């Protein structure tokens, strides 16, 4: 709880700042709309957290989201019956991409930075080749409902987010969570104490792939087919996780804080927008956050860093 406190303070300050600029923001419909908008990034951040805390990176989630949305539109092509089988297929595909990332990283010993960068390029290239730059088909109303509609006053995406957040928090408190953090902290020690490091890390990549699939379903539902839907999401997710105080390199940080980091990033973007600052500044702000957070992390634990590199 102590660890997660600072990011919540930052988040609260940002929310207050938004409310000062736009008092309507704190009323339930507006706030729910904000949570709905943040939901895909928060879910991606939870997935990215699993990978980062286990000591790896996943750069492929952005293009995976794009791929899933484009594939969904092509396969559904406006037909209601095709919706649920395609949703199931998207989830399987997300897990599969995670599995490949994990196996290549752990068994072939390719650094995850390279594995997932390669996956990013492969997916975006394949999508471009397949679609020729212009996605075809259309998402059905039923598919759109998850990202667009709501149950009474509460959007479906908020409900899905609550379920994902609860599952993530539970998993990190359970044995799996402790193992994941142990692997990221010191994989040799974890291996010596009987943890199957390769398997745990592969599962982390699969969680990230699953998160990308869920985010794709919500984003595709929210705004429809687009070949740009996932652009830059991998860096937003990593920024969110870092902002939540999770150490790059693994072993430290909480999933709740990572998700709060995603909310904070989204709140920051909302605030910038409210003050009339264009999207051009967003990447710059993300860059400052990543560098500042990692630099501060290095200052924090000088001895551990030395030990990790030796």
């Amino acid at each position, binding site marked *: 709880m102590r660890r997660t406190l600072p990011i919540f303070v*930052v988040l609260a300050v940002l929310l207050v700042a938004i409310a000062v600029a736009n008092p309507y*923001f704190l009323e339930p419909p507006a706030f729910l709309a904000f949570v709905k908008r943040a939901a895909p990034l928060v879910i991606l951040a939870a997935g990215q957290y699993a990978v980062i805390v286990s000591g790896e990176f996943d750069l492929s989630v952005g293009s995976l989201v794009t791929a899933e949305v484009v594939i969904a539109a092509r396969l559904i092509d406006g037909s209601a019956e095709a919706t649920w089988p395609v949703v199931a297929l998207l989830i399987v595909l997300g897990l599969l991409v995670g599995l490949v990332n994990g196996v290549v990283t752990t068994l072939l010993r390719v650094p995850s930075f390279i594995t997932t960068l390669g996956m990013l390029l492969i997916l975006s290239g394949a999508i471009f080749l397949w679609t020729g730059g212009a996605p*075809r*088909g259309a998402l059905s109303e039923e598919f759109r409902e998850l990202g667009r509609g709501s149950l009474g006053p509460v959007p479906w995406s908020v409900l899905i987010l609550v379920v994902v957040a609860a599952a993530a928090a539970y998993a990190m408190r359970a044995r799996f969570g402790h193992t994941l953090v142990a692997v990221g902290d010191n994989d040799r020690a974890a291996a010596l104490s009987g943890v199957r490091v390769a398997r745990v890390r592969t599962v982390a990549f699969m969680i990230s792939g699953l998160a990308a699939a869920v985010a794709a379903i919500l984003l595709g539902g929210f705004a429809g087919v687009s070949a740009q839907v996932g652009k830059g999401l991998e860096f937003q997710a990593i920024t969110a996780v870092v902002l939540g105080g999770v150490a790059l390199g693994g072993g430290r940080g909480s999933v709740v804080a990572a998700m709060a980091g995603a909310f904070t990033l989204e709140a920051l973007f909302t605030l910038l927008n409210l003050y*009339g600052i264009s999207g*051009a500044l967003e990447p710059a702000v993300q860059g400052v956050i990543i560098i500042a957070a990692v630099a501060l992390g290095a200052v924090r634990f000088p001895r551990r860093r030395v030990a990790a590199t030796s």
Partner: protein
Amino acid sequence: MNSYSRRLLACAALAVVTLSAAACTSDKPATSSASAGSGSAEPAGSAAAKDAGTGDQSKFFVQADYDAQMAMRKAQADGPADKPWEQTIDAQLVDTGKYKKSGPYNLCFSNAAVNNPWRQVGLKNMQAEVALHKEIAKFTALDAEGKDDKQISDIAELQGKGCDVLIVSPNTTATLTPAVAGACPKVPVIVFDRGVQTDCPVTFIKPIGGYAFGAEAAEFLVDKVPAGGKILALRILPGVDVLETRWSAAKVAFDKSDLDVVGVEFTDGDAAKTKSVVSDYIQRFGKIDGVWMDAGATAVAAVEAFEDAGQPVPPINGEDQQDFLKKWSDSKLTAIAPTYPTYQWRTPIIAALKILKGEQVPKVWNLPQPTITQDNLTTYLKPGMPPLHYAMCGCENLPGYPEKWGGTS
């Protein structure tokens, strides 16, 4: 305990970083009337008071070009009415006798990029036009993938390939100018879509232009939205000349009107972001009475923001993409679609053959730039075509339509 306090310190520092990034923004937005509350010392002064919330005029705005395009919107085009890609407006013909040669011909094309649906449709139009002409023995197209340096080397490479005509769609205007100027003495050059800052190409082909696009949409809103109505203007990104001209013409129209432009926002051409921005404005102002867009790719997302807020969709402009036309028709919107027609990709091939046959061509080949309105909507709404297909393609009678364009008949 020690590590906890360090962590707190680190996060506090981070908070300072993030907040100062947000705080430093508050003294910038003199352009947005929405943030009128905090204005203390405004250097812009009196000009800001009269601008109807549209901000300063773009530095890309050129009055003479604007006036010329406004005149061309009303002008009658010469040429066959059923083939607008062969029509010209205000043509100043030039002789091409010195380029005359007998076939078969080898045409070369240096393309800026194929990275968006507009260029996708355009390239297919061009390839189909090539296939219509048996005298074209070879057509070599190089894709610069949106990179100036690659296009410069592409143009150099094509000069060694025995091209009879070199067609260039420049990636950026200023940077590609020397490369085009270098090719002109060796081979007849045709430039289209974006321009270059030299008059050495034999012909420069373009639709009327960005001012005409922006003005068409803005005048529609001025006409349809009651006085005092709140307008939200959505732009893709700043600093691109072809988009700046669209907005600057709209600004002129809005400044003359009684409309209140409550926001000018950038969307990066992203549907989710567009929808979020529009939702924010609906929340903040309760009601938005009109939406102006500098490009139609995210128009459907903007429409959905109103639907999801449970509000009627106000007058809006999109472009000639099928998804918007379908939405317009299905939801009975009050809408208009100015176009930047993709049929202009057929014209360079036609021009190349004219040049090689020694026929006269216009120095600047201004193509008509039609607008889709309620009256002709059904003509351009084509079931079976993909959602991002551009209707103003002039491709319906080309071989391979509709399959080659991704559609079904």
